[in-house]
């Protein structure tokens, strides 16, 4: 299974919206954590997600165990949401280029969260560094906007 994101979907995912990571341990006990940004790669076939080392120890342990990952991207103001499911290709420590992406992401997130009443000073305090860079291949993409049809595979122009 594989899916490739369209440029429009890729830019939505990179637009400073919430990035949420779901994993599970060997006993299938799930874990939820917020990421600090993502970058679409390999022409839309892969994704790198950034997770702060301080808060993501359990998530990273799960990914090292089984590599199964779900990433939900959601825009707070209208709940437009997509969920990407995939398998981890690599886990490494973030580098200087990643750090620039993370800093830009949190600055953009401060703007989108301000729209729903969260002060930008709070988003700027989110622990971000050091961070892990989780690279994954995209297997499936689902529409996650709440309502009927939530959970349906993204079709049409969004993926190839």
């Amino acid at each position, binding site marked *: 299974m594989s899916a490739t994101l369209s440029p429009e979907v890729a830019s939505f995912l990179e637009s400073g919206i919430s990035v949420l990571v779901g994993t599970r341990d060997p006993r299938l006990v799930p874990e939820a954590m917020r990421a600090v940004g993502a970058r679409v790669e390999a022409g839309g076939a892969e994704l790198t997600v950034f997770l702060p080392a301080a808060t993501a120890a359990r998530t990273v342990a799960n990914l090292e165990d089984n590599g199964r990952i*779900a990433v939900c991207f959601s825009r707070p103001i209208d*709940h437009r949401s997509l969920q990407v499911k995939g398998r981890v290709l690599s886990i490494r420590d973030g580098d200087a280029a990643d750090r620039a992406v993370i800093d830009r992401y949190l600055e953009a997130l401060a703007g989108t969260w301000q729209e729903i009443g969260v002060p930008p000073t709070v988003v700027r305090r989110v622990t971000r560094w050091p961070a892990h860079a989780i690279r994954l291949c995209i297997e499936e993409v689902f529409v996650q906007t709440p309502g009927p049809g939530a959970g349906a595979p993204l079709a049409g122009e969004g993926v190839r």
Partner: protein
Amino acid sequence: MTPTLAELHPCFQGVIPSLITTCARDGTPNITYLSQVHLVGPTQVALSQQFFNKTQRNIAENPWAAVLVMDPVSFEAYRLLLRFHHAETSGPLFERMALRIQVIASHTGMAGVFKLRSADVYDVVEIERVVDFLRPSGAGAPVGGAPLPAGPLTELRGLQTISDRIARACDLEGLLAGALAALDELFGFSHAMVLLPEEPDGHLVAISSRGYGDAGIGAEVRRGEGIIGTVAERRRMIRMAGFGAELRYGRAIRGRVAECGERGTLAPEIPLPGLPDAQAQLALPLLVGERLMGVLAVESRDPLHFDDWDEAFLGIVGNQIAMGIARTRAPEDEDASAERPGGGTRGGGSVRRSFCYYRNDDCVFVDGEYLIRNVPGKILWKVLGLHLREGRTEFTNRELRLDPALGLPAVKDNLESRLILLRKRLQQKCPEVRLVPVRRGRFALELDCAVELIEKETG
């Protein structure tokens, strides 16, 4: 230190959406937002299910769920490990959660489309604070900011002032305007309105407001719709926090319903009278005995603005307003004293306003723009007609009450509230025509324009 579930109470008000991860039997995780986390007891929470989705399918296969919640004041994050216990589709818990969803659904025109399927109860197996989710703030100042401490004496004096204004008001308009002004000036309820029920179906009409300008006057809310309509129907106070978040959630679903070709099932969205970006609303019924006199609604852009104190305080003020409204309904005697000249036309030739009355729905338009309908519309039509035909400029409440064509009930007729509404609508849409109280039980028609009257059967 592990916090208790009760200490996480602010996280469950829906201000910041919570996340949930579940896992299918084949090991595929799933992560999504949750619309509602409801505190059930010291060791249980309930999650709302509006649609059958992947989360529910996963839970049927594997009962574990991880939920991440955020405190809307401190912005600390907490992780809850849950294990599915049972689902409820009736009973008090289900009713409480369904009421909240019903309010959101009807506000977004989705009554019946977006409703609670089940309240899923989970055991909370672990609670932990996400350590280092936030870096320490520079100054160590609280992020949310606590309200200024208010001493009991200050509050009591403020309450006394409001009570005085209500007790001494000489008419309904003064009573409501005075009470809302005092609530704003003394207690910071800067966006408030009072709506009164109208026959025959008991829909509510905004008659007085504070903080919105005059635009909301005359706005109508049907029984059972939105927070205000639901308060009127159930005669219970409702406080919604994080209202904006849930409204956005409801609108997102509405958008998906429309995209999925089910547009025909949607009712037109009710414009919420008030702040377009309200984050919290508190509305309460104004009751005298068994009788609903109206609804008092306050709102704020701050999702945590209203708490238990506001409920109790506004409950007292609401009772006073309700009794005040009942008092102004007592039939007035015409006051022969304090004669004051009024009425008539001044320089009527320069401007011309054209009024059109539609008989089928008792609607009055002025120069093609909707003005007013029902009883206030019929009153305006009668007054303007008598002026054109007989040159009259002064009218009594008594003659309006005695005119069967206006359809006022024999007792407790709300005539005063209808005249207030009519006066305010004229101020907004046609300031050249004014109804000015001259003395108790009498008013004068003042015109700064020429008036044309047209009657049509239908629009």
